[in-house]
């Protein structure tokens, strides 16, 4: 049957891609600890991933905080529960919306950028030039980018959470005149340290996913410039999907650990 053949070829392609990404990830772990250490390039990539994403993350945070506050107030007031709005904002932003939305936004910005940059270096033989000059391109190009993502995703998530709560407070203050201390007390009392650590910590996994997937798709581009564009698009789609899947798994695992769920 032609449809069966098509399905099996899609599954085969997916399996091959999964295996290739897994092998690339293993190569990362194998080489990340070896010399040469590319500290200057690592700092440059952290600046690229972190500092240059700040405005995007701040706007995202302010927007979701303010909108969530607006949307939730109407529903809560119907049940006479408007006073729990700060706690609800804190839990939803810190535990779920902040980490996932920050990671998805960064997957769009960084994933496409890394895949396109490495892909264009591959098709213009710059990676081959590094290889033949014994410059260890995997260290210089891949290890630094993936490590920068692992470090910067949690940092930017904390920033996004803080800005989103600020956005939520500003909206609440303008709408209801809620006192700043009352809002912050309610936020702090509703959160446990473990909530913050687990939800922020899981973004290291998301950063790893975005880094590995995007670098793999860029580093292994074959063909011409049209393939570079496709790699950038695939990097965003695949990273975003894997973030959502990994989020379900991480949350499920935390529920299995006493005290974290």
């Amino acid at each position, binding site marked *: 049957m032609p449809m069966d053949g098509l399905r099996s070829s899609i599954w085969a392609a997916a399996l091959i891609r999964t295996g290739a990404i897994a092998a690339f990830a293993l190569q990362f772990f194998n080489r990340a600890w070896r010399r040469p250490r590319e500290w200057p390039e690592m700092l440059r990539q952290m600046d690229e991933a972190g500092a240059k994403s700040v405005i995007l993350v701040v706007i995202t945070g302010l927007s979701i905080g303010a909108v969530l506050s607006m949307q939730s107030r109407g529903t809560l007031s119907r049940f006479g529960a408007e006073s729990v709005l700060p706690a609800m904002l804190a839990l939803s932003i810190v535990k779920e919306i902040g980490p996932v939305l920050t990671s998805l936004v960064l997957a769009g910005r960084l994933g496409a950028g890394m895949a396109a940059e490495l892909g264009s270096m591959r098709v*213009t033989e710059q990676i*081959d*030039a*590094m*290889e*033949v*000059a014994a410059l260890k391109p995997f260290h210089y190009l891949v290890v630094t980018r993936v490590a920068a993502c692992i470090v910067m995703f949690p940092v930017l998530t904390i920033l996004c959470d803080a800005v989103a709560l600020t956005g939520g407070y500003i909206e609440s203050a303008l709408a209801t005149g809620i006192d700043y201390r009352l809002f912050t007390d309610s936020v702090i009392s509703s959160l446990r340290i473990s909530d913050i650590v687990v939800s922020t910590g899981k973004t290291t996994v998301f950063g790893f996913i975005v880094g590995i997937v995007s670098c793999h798709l860029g580093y292994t581009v074959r063909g011409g410039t049209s393939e570079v564009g496709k790699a950038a698009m695939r990097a965003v789609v695949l990273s975003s999907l894997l973030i959502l899947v990994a989020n379900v798994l991480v949350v499920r695992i935390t529920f299995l650990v006493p005290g974290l769920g």
Partner: protein
Amino acid sequence: MIIRLEDVHKSFGDKDILNGITLDIAKGQSVAIMGGSGTGKSVLLKHVVRLIKPDRGRVWVGGRCLEGIGESEMDAIRLRIGYLFQGGALFDSMTVEENLDFILRRHTVLDPAARAARIGQALSWVRLHDKGRQFPSELSGGQRKRVALARATVLGPEILLCDEPTTGLDPVSVRTVSDLIVYLRNEKGTTVVSITHDLLCAEIISDEVHFLHGGRVVASGDFATVRDSSDSILQEFFLA
């Protein structure tokens, strides 16, 4: 022999690219590999630095067979080789100086002043001493090729591999790049292997020409002998 290819076969999918190439290149020799498009010239060159591994056959560099050798040993061999890529392959996020400094920083113990002096010397050699602060995108095709040549030779390699060193250049730039390659062979004793379609370049730089067709070497000799051959394949190429 500083480079030896022994019955090298390479296929991509069902397409045979190299079909049992055997080639010996002596130290200090300048060899041109010629042939039509798609005859496997670039693939052949990439075997010498193990960017591509043969399906069958062996490659020897400096008396060492590349088959099965480890990464660190391969890196040591690669440091004896400079590779000039067809498009230059300059690192476009770095300036011209940084392109050269990247290699010197990694592979030498020179201090910054000594590295800067070496870079200045290399850029002066290719007559681009005033372009050090520019990015590759700000240079012309000929200038990029010369920077790439400076980068390929900044460590003073024993072997220089050139993939189409003059393709796409104007006749003056062809002459300049060809003269620089001749200088390396004559003054530094560098072994040069060049892939070229350019008859002028091949005539200037080569002691010996190997002509590839159908994944095999079909003719070898000095430039005039190969050019004047009565073989129809060679005639078609040289008279085109």
